[in-house]
């Protein structure tokens, strides 16, 4: 594509933690959209593949004063010194210069899992098994997303299939700029309380760019200098203080504020 004539985007998200109810609709929509296979009966938080997880956290106070928040956690789309990119020996992770999206290329991945170790957000998942669905359910797979094979790492890519769709729509209209309403990731579409806003952080008119500059906005582990493009919003000080903490993967390792 002609770089000179295409606007460079920095796709990002703003997630309002004061709105999130922990319903899990985003998590399910993500798995459905991206053809993530169901876990085996013995699957757990360490062996499962869930591109997006919603982590329940409490403020550390005891009954009956305990307060709860829910934190959707997925690939934070780091912009600088992207840890997974720098450690991958196969060049299977790359940052798309046109969109800022960190992509994972399963065909190149050899399954060494260095990227999983390097990711400070625990947002990468390894396919321990061949992807399998109950008999007949493969007819209900998303035709735009290929299932990944056993032995590779995968993660959130801001619903890349939908980006391709939006580009195809734009191309059909003779345009090279996609319509922002044509590219909405599944988690954003499914959130019942509109807690997730998605868009181009370079576009100052976009809601996501405005929210990213809000006083309530913060990013997780920003001290690492990786410049993640997923922003979180909360007016609760104890939730904001979690930003410097490394969040565990599940409720089983509850993080207290």
């Amino acid at each position, binding site marked *: 594509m002609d770089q000179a004539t295409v606007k460079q985007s920095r796709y990002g998200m703003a997630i309002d933690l004061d709105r999130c109810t922990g319903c899990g609709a985003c998590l*399910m*929509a993500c798995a459905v959209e991206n053809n993530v296979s169901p876990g085996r009966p013995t699957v757990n938080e360490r062996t*499962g593949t869930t591109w997006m997880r919603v982590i329940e956290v409490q403020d550390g106070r005891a009954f009956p004063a305990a307060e709860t928040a*829910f934190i959707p956690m997925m690939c934070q789309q780091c912009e600088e010194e992207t840890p997974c990119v720098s450690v991958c020996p196969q060049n299977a992770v790359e940052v798309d210069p046109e969109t800022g999206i960190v992509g994972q290329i399963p065909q190149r991945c050899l399954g060494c899992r260095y990227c999983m170790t390097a990711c400070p957000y625990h947002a990468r998942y390894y396919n321990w098994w061949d992807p399998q669905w*109950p008999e007949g359910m493969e007819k209900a797979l998303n035709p735009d997303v290929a299932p990944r094979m056993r032995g590779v790492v995968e993660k959130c890519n801001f619903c890349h299939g939908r980006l391709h769709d939006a580009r195809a729509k734009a191309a059909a209209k003779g345009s090279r700029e996609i319509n922002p309403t044509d590219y909405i990731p599944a988690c954003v579409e499914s959130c019942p309380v509109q807690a997730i806003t998605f868009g181009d952080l370079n576009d100052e008119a976009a809601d996501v760019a405005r929210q990213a500059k809000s006083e309530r906005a913060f990013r997780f582990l920003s001290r690492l200098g990786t410049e993640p493009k997923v922003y979180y919003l909360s007016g609760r000080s104890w939730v904001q203080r979690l930003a410097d903490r490394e969040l565990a993967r599940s409720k089983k390792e509850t993080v207290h504020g």
Partner: protein
Amino acid sequence: MPLTLTRRDILKFVGGSIAGIMVTPIPWKLLDDVSIWTQNGPWIPKVPRGALTTSFSTCALCPAGCGVQARCVNGIPYFLSGTRNHPVNNGTLCPSGVAAHHLAYHPLRLKTPVQVTRGNGTIEVRPVSLDDVLRKISVASGNSTGAKGSLALLDQRPGRTVSLFYRKQLARHDHGIYLVSPTDPILITQCLDEMAETPFGPVGYHLENVRTILSFAAPVLDGWGTPAQTSPMLRTRHSSEQNAVKVIQIDSRHSRSAQLADQWIPLKPKTEAALAFGIAHVIIRDGLYDKRVIGRRIPDFNIPGKHSYSDLIGRFTPDHTSELTGVSSDVIVSTAHSLVARGPSVAIGDGDSGGGPLGKEAEIAIWGLNILLGALESNGSIVQRREAPVPEGFSSKELSPVMGISAIPDHSIGLLLIDGSDPGDPLPWSLLERKLIPRQSLVVACSPTLTGLAQHAQYVVPTPAHLEALTDIPTIVSSATATFSISAPLLKRPEGMTDAIEIMAKVFETEGSMEDLLKQRTSAIFATRRGCVFKAGTGTTVPITELGSPDEFWTELTAGGMWTDDPIRSKPFFQFHFMGRAPDAYQRMLDAGEAVSPLDGPLTPEMLTVLPYGRRAEVGGAQLSPLMTKLYQESGLHRSSKVAVLNPATAKKFDLVHGEQGILATACGTQKVGIRVDAAVMPGVIEIAAGPEPIGQAGNEIVQEQNILELIDPDQALPWRAFRATLRKA
């Protein structure tokens, strides 16, 4: 010099070659390729190819009836989202709804009718023919006379048009019983009817008029109302908006609604009636109610020389209520004042799916609070609404009455039919089992899977799965006006599936087809020319008068549309008996208020109080997509029925450790559970979900569900919100 090759030279050459080749890319490339060959093969599913289309329908997984937009490939849905502008869900879906198109492929789906034989800890499942099942039913039905027991039909999704059909047929049967779960809104409304001089009828809520909601353990923010009602409340949580709705959740459990509410008031289990009386006491004591309205409306408010409501309430001072409920007297007083100062306010009871009903007296106490708060006045937030019109021949006089489990004598049912096509609220099997005639009764279930109550039946007939069946969605309890929508099939049903209505029609020796029945209903609604119709395709709402014919109305409804009735403009004048009209009302209400919580009851040191809970549409195992392992096992965001949650202090006292396995035991059985520690849980209790147990992709064998509701002692009176059990290390 002749070249002589010794065996040693050859070995050296081969050895050197092998060693040398290891530093070339050849073996590693080969290894990589072999690895790739084993990773990719015909066993990796191919994504479907074909025409992409969009279809609309209505979700039937729970009573809300959300509009569904399905993106399809080759006509098969692959992604579900909420229908834009739909009055119920306005473009959103819950996690169960998002993955609902997977239910047709559930590994536990039954393919043929089966006979289930239970042994000592074993379960044998044998395929049988539908004719065999019908013959068994015919014999048992013939025996179901007064001498040999009644014929009961348990409807797990009451209020549908087919429910009217069942009630009509049962009314013709000499000993027919129409049975529903105790948490059904019909039974809850009966409590209000017991208070009113004339039947109040169906109840609805104008939540958009409310500034404060006082929820007595109802899942107000987690499935009680429609997404369109609760989303605005959830969006304004933690905001400083003056007009934002404030939700006060009264709940012994740290439920999702308790987590999301503006204020959580934990109380001792089973003391909801006492707290309702305590709040009413403060409102009356401090003169915070409209005396003219109460004087006109409430005959039993103050009766000289007789026990009256004011006598009853007078006993529940804040201090006494605090002793009973564990809620501080300051909180009781401030809550009462807040409800009045921050009106309009409404109190909601209703119970919940897994936790069960609050109990009749507690519901009456809550309705009394609503009358004091003015919620039932003409400008109040609780409204009387009409039912959606019904076809001729289905008037209430021609229908069998709706009965709860407690109204049925023990050992009286000879034939129990279960319509579990759309599993709704659960019912502990132990409560149902004691109503059956021992060793002589027959239980037949119509269900897509052998889960929930169906696993206790002797015969199970497979019914179409979600999105394969044609069914209607009755009005949800929270709606201020009657609504009607149709869940039209988006998937072709497999061979061998039978609609429950076809089985029941054969049992009652009559004709019955779901499509005919629903067409009659839509024609009856259309004939009134009342209300408006939401069109899913355009996302617009038009008056029904704009539609030319019942066929056009049917077409809109089966394409994801929805009918909404006109509101009733004026509310007739009602008089209410605050304590109900039963002769022993005062004593019953007093006993309910003074009831000792299981937490305070006589206990052996090792006993804990179990608080079951469950989210609507997720309580039955068959209701969940196999992909739900993401939500339960892989993220731990929702807790399955295999996880018992305790306060850290309770766990320490009982020597239980987070992450270990434990055995939960009552007199009725045991269940293995994982132990989780959560500082937000009330000390002395165990919170455990009544379902589901998600089933992974390999779980395609018939399994016997273990559910906390299976451990309930039938000798313990309803409701089952709290019961005693032991928990020890496995």
